[in-house]
C-alpha cells in the first residue's frame, strides 16, 4: 500500500531529514512509526500526503509513483488519504458537523448523503450528540475524535495519523487507538507516527523505527541494525522496553 524506495529528503538549507529510507506497508496493515522528535517521522508522513516531495527516490501508494503526480492532481490524492494531526487542524469557527462534512462538500456530495455520512462518522467516534457544537466547546480528546471522524468520513483506503495521542492521557489514547483498530479491521490501512512507546507496546502491531533520518528497524527484520544504540529506548525492539513504558 505504501512503499518507500530509497527515499532521501533534504530540506532547503541543507538539513537532511531522510536518508535512503526503504519500507513497505501491505494493504490492510496497521503499523506504527516511532522515533525521537526530529528523527523524520513527520517528513515520512508529509511525503505520503504530498506536502513534501522526495529529493531522491520514489514513494508509491497502491503501486502509483507519487513523483508522477502533478501539482493540480495533489488534491485528488489527498482525498484518498485520511489524515489526523496532533493539532487536530479543525476549523474553529465552524460546527462539528461542518468540520466533518468538509471533505464531502469538497468532493461534491449531495446534502442528503453528507447528512448521512457525517452522522455515521460521528456516531463511530461517539460524538453524535455534539454535532452542532463548536470545536472550542469540546475537550482535547473530543476534538481529536472530530478530526478522526473527518479523516474517515469519505472512507479512504489509507489513514495516516501524526501523533494522534500527543496531548491525551493514557486512557483517552487507548480509546483513540481502539478506534484505529476498528477502522483497520474494516480493511483500512492505518499508519500511525507516534513517540508513545507504551502505547505501541500494548498493541501488537508492526512498528517501524527511524533515527536521524535512517530507518533502523522496519519491524520485520529479525536482526538488529548495527547503528542501534542499546541505551536508546526507541532503538530497542518494543518487546524489550524499560518497565516505565510497559506499565
Amino acid at each position, binding site marked *: 500500500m505504501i512503499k518507500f524506495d530509497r527515499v532521501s529528503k533534504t530540506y532547503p538549507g541543507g538539513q537532511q531529514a531522510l536518508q535512503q529510507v526503504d519500507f513497505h506497508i501491505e494493504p490492510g496493515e496497521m503499523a506504527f512509526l516511532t522515533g525521537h522528535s526530529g528523527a523524520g517521522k513527520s517528513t515520512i508522513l508529509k511525503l505520503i500526503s504530498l506536502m513534501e516531495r522526495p529529493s531522491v527516490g520514489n514513494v508509491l501508494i*497502491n503501486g502509483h509513483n507519487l513523483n508522477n503526480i502533478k501539482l493540480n492532481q495533489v488534491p*485528488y*490524492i489527498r482525498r*484518498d488519504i485520511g*489524515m489526523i494531526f496532533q493539532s487536530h*487542524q479543525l476549523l474553529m469557527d465552524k460546527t462539528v458537523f461542518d468540520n466533518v462534512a468538509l*471533505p464531502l*462538500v469538497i*468532493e*461534491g456530495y449531495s446534502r442528503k448523503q453528507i447528512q448521512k455520512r457525517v452522522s455515521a462518522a460521528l456516531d463511530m467516534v461517539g460524538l453524535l450528540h455534539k454535532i452542532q457544537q463548536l470545536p472550542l466547546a469540546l475537550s482535547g480528546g473530543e476534538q481529536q475524535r472530530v478530526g478522526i471522524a473527518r479523516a474517515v468520513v469519505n472512507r479512504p483506503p489509507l489513514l495516516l495519523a501524526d501523533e494522534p495521542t500527543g496531548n491525551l492521557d493514557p486512557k483517552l489514547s487507548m480509546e483513540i487507538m481502539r478506534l484505529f483498530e476498528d477502522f483497520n479491521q474494516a480493511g483500512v490501512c492505518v499508519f500511525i507516527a507516534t513517540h508513545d512507546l507504551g502505547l505501541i507496546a500494548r498493541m501488537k502491531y508492526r512498528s517501524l523505527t527511524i533515527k536521524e533520518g535512517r530507518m533502523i528497524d522496519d519491524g520485520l527484520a529479525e536482526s538488529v541494525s548495527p547503528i542501534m544504540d542499546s541505551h536508546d529506548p526507541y532503538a530497542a525492539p518494543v518487546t524489550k522496553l524499560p518497565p516505565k513504558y510497559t506499565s
Partner: protein
Amino acid sequence: MSLLFSGRNSSSGSRRVSVFQRLLMGIINHMRQALASLGELWRSPLATIMTIGVLGLSITLPSTLYLMVKNTEKVTAGWEDAGEISLYLQANTTAKQAQKLLSGVSAMKNKIDDARLISPDLALEEFETLSGLGDALAYLDANPLPYVLLITPKPEYLRPEAARQLLSELEQQSIVDFGKLDIEWLEKLYAIVSIAKDIVWIVAILLCVSVVLIIGNTIRLNILSQREAIAVMKLVGATDNFIRFPFLYTGFWYGILGGFLAWMLVAFLLWWIQSGVENLAGLYRTSFTISGLDGSALGIILMISITLGLIGSLISVQKHIKEIEPS
C-alpha cells in the same frame, strides 16, 4: 475520481448521478458559496462598508464627470445656428444678381438646408429697430449695407472643419465680397469639451486602477486571515478552485454593492446640481434637465464595478492561494 484506487467509488456516486444532476449540484454549490461569501461580508460590517465606500466613491467621480460632459455635448448640439454662414455680397450687386445667387446656392441641396436673402433695405430696417440708432441712421446719404445671404448648412456641415470648407466654397462665387462664419468660439468650446473628456478618461482609469488595488488588498487580507482554514481545506483535498471561488464571490459582492452605492451617489449629485443648472438655463430663457442616469447607466456602472471587483480579487487569489500550503 480517484487517481490511486481505481475501484474506489468516491465523489457523489458518479455512476448513478446524471450529468444534469451533477450540473445542478454544481450550480447549487456555487449559489451556496456566493451566499456564504455575502454572509461573511455581513459578519464584518465596518470593514465591508469601508471597502464598498471606497469602491462606490471611486466610481462616482468619473461617472458624474462623464454624465456632465455628455450633457454639455447635448447642450451644444442644440446650438445649430452657430454654424450659420453669412455671405456679404459686393456693394454694387443688383437685386437681380443677388436673386440669381440665392437660387444658385439654394440648389446645393446636399449641403444646405436653407438660404435666405436679406436686402439692404430690410437689413437697415432691422438694424434700426434692434440697435436703437434709428435717428442717427437718418443722417446717412445712402444705405451702406450690402445684400446678405444667410445660409444654414446641413447638420453634417456644422462641425468646424466642414463648415469652414463650405464657407470657402461659397466665397468663390463671383459677387461675394466675403463670408463670415462665427465659429471660433464654437471651436474653443469643442476643444474644452474634448479636454474635459480626456480628463474624465484619465480620472476614470486612475480610479479604476486604485479600485482594483484596493479590492485586491482587501481580498489579500481576507485570504491571509483565513490562512489556517485554507491549509486545512487543502489537507482534506480541496482544489485551488474550490478555495478560490468564495473569495471571487466576495470580490463580486464588493463590486455589485459598490456599483449600487455609486449609482445612488451620482443620482444624488445630479439632483443637487440640477437646481443650479435650472437657474442658469432660466437666465438663457430655456429649460434644461440633466439626463443620462437611466437604467442603462445603472447597468454600465454595475458592470464596471463588478468587473473591477472581480479583477481585484482574481489578482489576489491567483497570487496568494497558491502560496498557502499545509505544513
